[in-house]
């Protein structure tokens, strides 16, 4: 599929925001495609929230443009907001009103006809598993429940894009996993593109397929998670760790003969193999052919943290 036919969900061109001479977002060029779950990473104060506010037309860029589904965020904010669901970092509800009332208000603000309001509210609450507390005041909700309610709140308008600013902050670890899975499930089910801001890396790694790292208002790196990982770990190479009962030089030679192997090093009872692609099946076969006894073979998984640290240090 060519890139041209794919609809760009988010596109910013030289998006810049200055506050009293400090540049918070600096000529940002961001492209997010349909169906992506995009992890928007960066340390605190990197300009993530400011970028989001500009995408939603809640603040005006100093220069440059932002588009969501082709709509100019600054000039057509209503069209943008109709298709975009936004969960702000410290999302709040009217605490003395019930969950369903809060959602019904959102539904009415989105211009849903009255007969659809209740139906949509019940569906959304059902999706996030809050049906049983629909008539309870939001003030009685736990932090995790409020976050789930926030997801239900954006589902009311059936958005094409969801922008989630730190959707997991303040939730317990188990809640975080549930929350992330919920987001991923919904995204798949209603074909919603997700932009998730976070500085908690393993969360992003869990559900995102693309990431962008923003440091000091600049996008230092952007791309598919797999690619970035390999680039971070030694120029697109993979490392495979092999544990054998006995290591002989004959065996090492056999492995070296496989095409695609860059180097084989010995370290104790381990062999550290660097290769250009995942050659585990071939390596296993070579070891067995050479009568070696294979105990364990591990491919070194890059962690997003490695990517993050690498680019963060560079910036």
């Amino acid at each position, binding site marked *: 599929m060519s890139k041209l036919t794919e609809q760009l969900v988010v596109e910013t061109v030289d998006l810049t925001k200055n506050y009293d001479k400090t540049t918070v977002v600096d000529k940002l060029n961001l492209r997010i495609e349909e169906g992506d779950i995009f992890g928007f990473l960066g340390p605190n104060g990197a300009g993530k*929230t400011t970028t989001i*506010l500009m995408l*939603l037309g*809640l*603040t005006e860029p100093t220069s440059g443009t932002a588009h969501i589904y082709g709509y100019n965020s600054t000039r057509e904010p*209503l*069209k943008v*907001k*109709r298709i*975009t*669901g*936004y*969960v*702000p*970092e*410290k*999302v*709040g*509800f*009217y*605490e*003395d009103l019930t969950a369903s009332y809060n959602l019904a*208000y*959102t539904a*009415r*603000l*989105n*211009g849903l006809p009255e007969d659809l309001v209740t139906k949509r509210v019940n569906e959304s609450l059902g999706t996030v598993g809050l049906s049983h507390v629909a008539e309870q005041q939001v003030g009685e909700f736990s932090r995790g429940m409020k976050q789930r309610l*926030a997801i239900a*709140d954006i589902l009311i*308008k059936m958005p094409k894009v969801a922008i989630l*600013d730190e959707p997991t902050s303040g939730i317990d670890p188990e809640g975080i996993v549930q929350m992330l899975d919920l987001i991923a499930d919904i995204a798949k089910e209603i074909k919603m593109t997700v932009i998730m801001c976070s500085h908690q890396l393993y969360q992003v790694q869990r559900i995102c397929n693309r990431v962008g790292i923003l440091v000091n208002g600049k996008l230092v790196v952007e791309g598919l998670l797999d690619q970035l990982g390999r680039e971070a770990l030694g120029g697109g190479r993979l490392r495979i760790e092999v544990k054998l009962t006995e290591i002989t030089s004959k065996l090492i030679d056999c492995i070296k003969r496989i095409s695609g192997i860059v180097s084989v090093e010995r370290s104790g009872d381990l062999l550290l193999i660097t290769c250009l692609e995942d050659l585990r099946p071939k390596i296993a076969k070579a070891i067995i052919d050479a009568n070696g006894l294979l105990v364990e073979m591990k491919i070194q998984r890059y962690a997003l943290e490695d990517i993050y640290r690498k680019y963060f240090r560079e910036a």
Partner: protein
Amino acid sequence: MKGLMTVFYKELADHFTSWRGIILFITVLLVSVFATLGPSGAIENLRQQLATPVQYGVGRFAFLYLFTTSGEDMPSFIWFITRFLVPIVGIVLGLDAINSEKNSGTMSRLLAQPIYRDAVINGKFLAGVVTIAIMLTTAILIVSAIGLAVLGVAPGSEEIARLLLFWGISILYGAFWLGLAMLFSVYFRPVAASAVSSLGIWMFFSFFMSMAAVSTANILAPLSQTPTTAELLSNYGIQITASRISPIMLFGEAATILLAPGARTAGEMLQLLTASGALWMPGPLSLGQSLLTIWPHLATIGGITAALFAISYIRFMREEIRST
């Protein structure tokens, strides 16, 4: 437009179902009843005045006097409305209109919906004004009902017209206080700050402005030991001009002229409030003349209200709303 109406209905429902709204309503009810029926309220006083109608010029507008007559220890209904009820209702309805939504994180969510931003501030203002209107209607109807039941005086057509006008300008006056409170709620993030600011302004105008006016007059036109009429007049003139800085005074004068047609000029308001009709003119003003007299007052209150709202509006529209 749809967004505006949605915000409006929600805010209106909030005003009528929240504790704040219920307490305000109870206050309005209590004040209306006590000002008229209280142990030494207007009714008692009016009974005596009706017995000698010619002396006080009460006769033709007996029904209206229910609103302006004070009792022995109890101020009149319009005193309560002017000094206390309308300012408090306006301020309490508006003091956290914008900043509480910012603080609780609902504002970001609200503005992420496909509505124009001004729908939020317009809807809130409109809901406040309508709430004030409903409360004033209740208060006026209670006083009228008591008048009808206890005194047995029915209002004439001019009296009804004057009451309706009074109702209208009271709403405008309420809108002023609401606008003031909302202005502070746009500018100040902590609710305590916005509350103290608007209540402070109310207290200043309500309690200290008259003192400030008297001292200004005494400095600019000092009175001798045995003041001449010219001295008294100029001193008094400055006093009135200075006190008209206060919207409370402006509205008080306008309301009195509307409801007490015996009053001839706006300045007589001062006597009205103090000497209970000592300088009463025998021939009442026609409705048209009354309106002519209070027109500058209304234009001023309306102008200030519009300016206050415009400042809040512009600030709110340009503001960047962050959830943190």
